[in-house]
């Protein structure tokens, strides 16, 4: 009797998990259940669809070493451009190499920048409020942390996320996110 109860309970568990997995393929369900699925047990099987990832994401920053210049608005930043450094890429996230079918740890690092950038972009697209609150998200903190790691006071830094497509000279680029200026500690 106990054996049958155990079997039925496990079968029921698999059936529920399977049904939830099917439902999770729909955005409306995955958006609602996603935040509760901390262990990622509900899969989203999209395999590069409907819109495949075909862009590289680059984290870049620029710096202002003068502490008394107003950089609070885009207009002020434009006016202070002579005091700002050129844009530089945060390149030292994890250099390395890949061996096809065997070795490619860097994919986790590049995917992290892609995931974080996409989250910020999605938030901004959803609503004007989303754009305002993007600055208070964990994703924003992570990019800020990566940008400010080697900054020294009184420098202020602003980061941006660029999307590029293609290889070499044919590459096209577009900025998708721009942060505020932040003071180094």
């Amino acid at each position, binding site marked *: 009797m106990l054996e049958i109860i155990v079997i039925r309970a496990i079968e029921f568990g698999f059936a529920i998990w399977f049904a939830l997995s099917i439902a999770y393929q729909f955005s409306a369900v995955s958006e609602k259940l996603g935040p509760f699925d901390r262990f990622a047990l509900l*899969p989203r099987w999209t395999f590069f*669809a409907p819109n*495949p990832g075909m862009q590289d994401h680059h984290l870049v920053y620029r710096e202002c070493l003068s502490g008394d210049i107003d950089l609070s608005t885009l207009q002020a930043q434009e006016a202070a451009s002579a005091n700002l450094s050129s844009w530089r890429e945060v390149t030292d996230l994890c250099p390395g190499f890949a061996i096809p079918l065997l070795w490619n740890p860097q994919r986790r690092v590049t995917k992290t920048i892609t995931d974080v950038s996409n989250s910020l972009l999605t938030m901004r697209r959803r609503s004007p409020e989303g754009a305002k609150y993007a600055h208070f998200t964990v994703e924003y903190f992570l990019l800020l942390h990566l940008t400010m790691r080697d900054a020294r006071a009184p420098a202020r830094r602003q980061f941006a996320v660029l999307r590029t497509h293609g*290889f070499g000279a044919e590459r096209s680029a577009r900025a998708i996110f721009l942060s505020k200026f932040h003071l180094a500690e």
Partner: protein
Amino acid sequence: MTIAAALAVHIAILCVVAGIFLTSIESLWLWSKGCYDTGGIWPWAIAREVYSERIGDVLSPVMSNGGMLVVMAARLGFAAALLAGYGNWTYAPIPLGLLVATQLLLQARMHWGGEGADQMTSIVLVTGLVAEICRGLPAVVDSAALFVGGQITISYLASGTAKLFGPLWRSGRALPMIMNHHTYGHVWFGAFLARYPLVGKALCYGIIGFQVTFLVFYVLPMPYALVYLAGGILFHAGIAYFMRLNLFLVTFVGTYPCLIYTRECVRVFLFHSPHLLRMLHG
């Protein structure tokens, strides 16, 4: 062509564990580069922000930089123990259970940078653990194999349907575009597809066709159904080689024995074949 449920689950577990072995070495390499440290790309100080203060404090010993080293080294050891003990499944639930625990821990720690193969790994590990604990109950082992076979079937159907909604996939330009960037692209293959756009189109339509018609695999008789398995192996090998998503091959193709088992069960259900029924039950 048929396979016993227990063997199908064992093969799926071993393939997933082989993937964990490789990933653990990669993770240890990333750890050595400081990726999990306070100055790295995945510092616990930021990752813990998604949890409450109290949960963050509880998790800190295992999720901090030092804790992650222990977790990843332990995973390497558990995976090696399972692979080395291939064929002897008596004590498998112990390392398997520890792999499940650390897998869930890593999923909770790493909010970004994951991929589809990680999800299949979690599914096979949890299902495999249930099957191993209840190995004396054939009905549970059968359900586990069917569940994994069902998941891979959903993965193809959902992915194929999603591609039908993508303008780039429908126009046959998706693959050449994917191949033309650094993260998941390939310089040589990208240039090849740019030179021969018809090949790119054919591949896009081939992938969509393979995925959206995947249920045909269940009704086609052997050996014709093997076309789907060969197509799947090529698909995952292509992803692993050209996109450098190495885990996709071993993890997904490793579930194919469960897929074959699921197909046989579906065919018994559909065609009420007593011959198949006898073969399945040994």
